């Protein structure tokens, strides 16, 4: 049987691929990635420590960590993290839901596309920060205007992702579904949804990334708490270590939320996972 032969070959190549990766597996890539920043930090720390540089505008790592420790010991840090996180989550949820619904509507019904897509593309061309004055006039300077701005940022990548994914669905798989007389709803549930899921997850992650971007802009609009506030405060009071500390927290939170999102969606994409491995 030809199947057995090709199977055996595939199995063998898979084993050798495993062997190849195992040599580099484990901590090495992670450690390698850390070498440069750690070395730069150590050099800068040493220069400031021995008085060769004053480190007032570019704080050494120790100063940054001291600031982080202080902020966290007073509990202040968590108030800011909480405020920012809630804004991102609320804006992301609103933007993702809207983007998904509009994208699905336009992707599924051609007529809606001709009607709505040109306007949406026009709105997309507006730099989102340009909305800020209008949103403040409409929604005031408190939470609603901030969350709306974040939602606008999240909306477009999700909308475009859903639309593109629906357009890229393999027409033949839909025909197989039709041959077995799936209802329109059945086609959506059993064929369209699983087909678009991988691209949808990518779009959600892009949306989340933009959500983190826009929360900073939103908090620059004037906020009494939040990581963006820490940035502005650090600038106004000349505390660069506080600015860098807030940037670090942004980076860590962005990574963690992205990781949680991909972890939550991973069970639906197991088949794609194996695709990546087969490559």
């Amino acid at each position, binding site marked *: *049987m*030809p*199947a*057995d032969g*090709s*199977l055996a070959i*595939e199995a063998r190549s898979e084993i050798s691929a495993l062997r190849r990766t195992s040599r580099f597996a484990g901590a090495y890539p992670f450690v390698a990635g850390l070498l440069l920043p750690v070395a730069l930090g150590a050099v800068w720390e040493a220069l400031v420590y021995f008085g060769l540089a004053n480190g007032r505008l570019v704080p050494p790592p120790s100063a940054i960590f001291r600031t982080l420790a202080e902020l966290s010991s007073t509990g202040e840090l968590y108030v800011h993290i909480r405020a920012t996180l809630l804004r991102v989550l609320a804006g992301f949820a609103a933007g993702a839901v809207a983007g998904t619904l509009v994208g699905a509507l336009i992707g599924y019904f051609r007529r809606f596309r001709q009607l709505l897509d040109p306007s949406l593309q026009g709105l997309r061309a507006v730099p989102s920060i340009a909305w800020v004055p209008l949103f403040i006039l409409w929604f005031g300077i408190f939470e609603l205007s901030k969350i709306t701005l974040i939602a606008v940022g999240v909306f477009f990548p999700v909308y475009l992702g859903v639309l593109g994914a629906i357009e890229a669905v*393999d027409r*033949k*798989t839909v*025909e*197989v579904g*039709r*041959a*077995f*007389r*799936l209802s329109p709803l059945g086609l959506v549930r059993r*064929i369209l949804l*699983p*087909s678009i*899921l991988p691209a949808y997850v990518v779009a959600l992650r892009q949306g989340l990334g933009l959500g983190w971007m826009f929360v900073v802009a939103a908090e620059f609009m004037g906020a009494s708490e939040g990581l963006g506030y820490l940035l502005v405060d650090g600038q106004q009071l000349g505390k660069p270590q506080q600015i860098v500390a807030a940037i670090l927290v942004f980076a860590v939170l962005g990574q963690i939320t992205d990781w949680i999102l991909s972890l939550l969606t991973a069970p639906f994409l197991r*088949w*794609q996972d*194996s*695709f990546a491995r*087969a490559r």
Partner: protein
Amino acid sequence: MRLVAGASADGSATDNILAKPRLRLEHVTINYGRSRPAVDDVSLSIGAGEFVALLGPSGCGKSTLLNVFAGFRSPDRGRVLLDEQPHLGPSARCGIVFQKHALFPWMSVIENVAFGPRRLGLDRPLERAHALLDLVGLKDVAHAWPSSLSGGMQQRVGIARALATRPPVLLMDEPFGALDAQTRSLMQEELLAIWDKLKPTVVFVTHDIEEALFLAGRVIVMESLPGRVAREISIPFPRPRAHAIMDQPAFIEHRREIADVIRIEARKAFR
């Protein structure tokens, strides 16, 4: 094997052309909004259990005809009959195999094959699927993802999926067109073995003359612009067939005859 019902596998010298018609086209015309129709007044009758190849240059409407057989497209004029009943819309009675396998990538191989039986509410869908996978020689990869299989294996899963509900008709749209020559010739022999066991009515679209001659009991050569039947040729080679028949003078003679027809047609379409 439980799935093989009622088929007479007596290795008869010719396909059973006198059997009652399973698929019939009556004066079918299809326009794609161009000056000349894509398919122009085509009438065909395909008997139950027959293996027919639709052969022609690209653009001759052979894939369009297959879509008509499948019920994905209804003719602008004329009628399509399945078992002498008007055939309207897609139906589970026609299994379809595409050039690009069109498997569901999010389902394991066995779930892909069991999709049809589950949809139709047949009993023991998984058992049926396993039997079909066994038939195409893939029982070892039942739980693999389609993306991890080779092109030939994916196409065999496609065939198993199309046959899992035991449809009386199997429609194949250049199913081996994307495979390398060696895999393709193995697949051709395997397809004949499967056909011999289950005896579905097969309509096989291809532009490969040798493939059509090797597989089919009847080759329908299409001409293009407008799409019409240029010639129908009965292929007399006894079954079961092996690739060795390709060296026989009769095979070569048929090949030359068809190639002459197709060359004229291809030139017409080329302009």
